[in-house]
């Protein structure tokens, strides 16, 4: 058994060594994607193009608008003279946010009443619109708190305004740097795509050119063939994860506070489940084109339902249930926890167990299906 597996391994590595393109495909695209994600994928919003319209022309309105001008979050591109200017700026996309201060703004404040402030947001990109609105809210509430304190001190000297001071203390990622959140995620998604594709294509290609049939009349057992075929991809997967993680840590400065052994264990289990998935796909397809199409339909939902970008907690209950069958979901938890929190098996064992169960299930299914596919 071992000698036959060894023969397949030798053959696989000779083929890989000879395939210069394969090596390129294994190293360059993952790095490019990592760099892209590292720089481009961020939830933070800076320099939002903003239009302002001050119809009040009071000290208060100028003070409020200056807070927008001096914020790094906003970039005032237009000081409008009329509501029509604002409309046009939003329509043409010159501005994403417009702040309109109506007449009587200062008068109402001075009387101690509530003063309305109009904010228009271009909602076509709902995500950045939401984030921008959040920043507007922070600026306005800061302004209104300062104004209230100032008013109390002027009218009732010596008296304190009762208020809650919110002290934000995000753990594990103090600056809420979204790059720290994304880079570990990129490891999971790139590994998923590469390993599923490599495995399914490698076996379907042998079926397509006929070498699989030749293999099947030799004493090689299906399980030996699967072993010999997948071990190289397992090693490649480990190398890939190590490469992306190293670049993420050294180039993007993502901290790695956990135990590398926990990472190795989680990665191994995740690789097993993705290998099994690729194997299962390969038993369903007889041409590489079919495999390509199938992979596309399998990988996209796995990605969407993983929690890589969209929080699982915000999904409808039905989809949340589906995510439990998704290996990427567990691996994301493990890898983010190992990178940023530094927790170990004591905390991560449920995810590890789930990954192991999924891997075992998928492997068993693909081996059973692989036998049958000979008929």
């Amino acid at each position, binding site marked *: 058994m071992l000698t*036959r597996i060894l*023969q397949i391994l*030798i*053959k696989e590595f000779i*083929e890989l060594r000879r395939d210069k393109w394969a090596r390129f495909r294994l190293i360059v695209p993952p790095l490019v994607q990592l760099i892209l994600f590292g720089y481009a994928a961020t939830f933070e919003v800076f320099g939002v193009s903003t239009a302002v319209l001050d119809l009040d022309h009071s000290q208060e309105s100028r003070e409020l608008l200056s807070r927008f001008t001096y914020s790094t979050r906003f970039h005032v591109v237009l000081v409008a003279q009329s509501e029509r200017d604002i409309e046009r700026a939003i329509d043409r996309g010159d501005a994403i946010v417009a702040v309109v201060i109506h007449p009587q703004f200062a008068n109402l404040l001075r009387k101690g009443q509530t003063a309305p402030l109009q904010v228009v947001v271009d909602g076509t990109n709902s995500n950045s619109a939401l984030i921008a609105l959040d920043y507007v809210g922070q600026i306005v509430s800061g302004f209104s708190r300062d104004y209230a304190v100032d008013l109390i001190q002027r009218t009732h000297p010596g008296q304190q305004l009762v208020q809650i001071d919110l002290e934000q203390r995000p753990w594990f990622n103090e600056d809420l740097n979204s790059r720290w959140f994304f880079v570990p995620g990129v490891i999971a998604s790139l590994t998923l795509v590469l390993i599923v594709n490599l495995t399914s294509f490698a076996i379907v290609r042998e079926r397509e050119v006929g*070498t699989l049939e030749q293999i099947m*009349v030799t*004493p090689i057992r299906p399980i030996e063939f699967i072993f010999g075929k997948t071990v190289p991809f397992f090693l490649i997967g480990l190398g890939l994860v190590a490469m992306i993680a190293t670049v993420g840590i050294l180039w993007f400065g993502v901290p790695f506070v956990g135990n590398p052994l926990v990472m190795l264990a989680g990665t191994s289990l995740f690789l097993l489940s993705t290998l099994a998935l690729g194997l299962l796909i390969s038993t369903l397809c007889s041409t590489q084109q079919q495999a390509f199409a199938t992979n596309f339909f399998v990988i996209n939902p796995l990605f969407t339902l993983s929690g890589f970008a969209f929080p699982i907690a915000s999904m409808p209950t039905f989809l949340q249930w589906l995510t439990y069958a998704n290996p990427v979901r567990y691996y994301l938890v493990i890898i983010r926890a190992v990178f940023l929190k530094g927790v170990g098996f004591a905390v991560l064992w449920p995810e590890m167990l789930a990954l192991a169960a999924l891997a075992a299930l998928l492997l068993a299914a693909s081996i059973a299906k692989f036998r049958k596919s*000979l008929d």
Partner: protein
Amino acid sequence: MEARAAAAPQVVAEDLTKRFGSFTAVDGISFRIARGEIMGFLGPNGAGKSTTIRILCGLLRPSGGRAFVAGIDVARDPERVRERIGYMSQKFSLYNDLSVAENLRFFGGVYRVPRAELAERMRFVVHMAGLDGREDALVATLAGGWKQRLALGCAILHRPPILFLDEPTSGVDPASRRRFWDLIHGLAEGGVSVLVSTHYMDEASYCNEIALINQGRLIALGSPGKLKRSALGGELLLVECDKVGAALELLPQAPGVLDVAAFGNALHVLVESAERGLVELPRYLDAKGIDCRNIARIDPTLEDVFVRLVAGGTRGEAPRP
């Protein structure tokens, strides 16, 4: 044990049947192959030759009937069968991105050819395939005939007593085909039983036994000589005349004529008795205004046999050896 194994047939197919859904690819085929015998599977594409071979190799499970290879029930224990057979599929199926030597080393290792013997056997195979000095060439760069011989070499590297060759010579030039058959004869002389399928009728004469297969059924079985003599069910006359088209239509109605087929400009006429036909047919044609230039008794070719049997459909039982 040894003696018995040698005397027992190496391949036995009993009423083999394979259905794919409602389509019956192999329909109750039975035959035996003795040690050192070359059995030729002859028939058009899609006749069920490949399917039968794939069942015997354990690649397909039969829907009915039984297959024994080297005395082992293939459906029950395909793993044990595999060490005792060599197989060449219709499609070239060695690794194109490996060199000649790497392919041989791979298959040698897979069959666990002892390391001490492997080098010697590899030399033999390389020499047999005419690839001396090209051991390090990538297989992708080899021409058809060499690829074919290398594939045969990979299939016999572990010295299997039984060889299954599925259309091994298709797409290979005639000289290479000739050379390939010499190799097969050499192996059979050494005691290897060979089952080889082909759709080249001329290759059938290289075989000891012929199985004619059409639409999944065995329509004739026997040595080439026996098939030519008996499978026709009559004697064959060559008729050369003018108005070949009219003669082709009229002759089947002539007394004692069983079948008529056109071969080039001449007609092959199957008659109950050659003696009577030689006298009666020229007279019959003359009466119809057709001039018979030449009539002679000929030995049938396997093509005659095949055309006759296929046209006659599946009438009667296939002759048994």
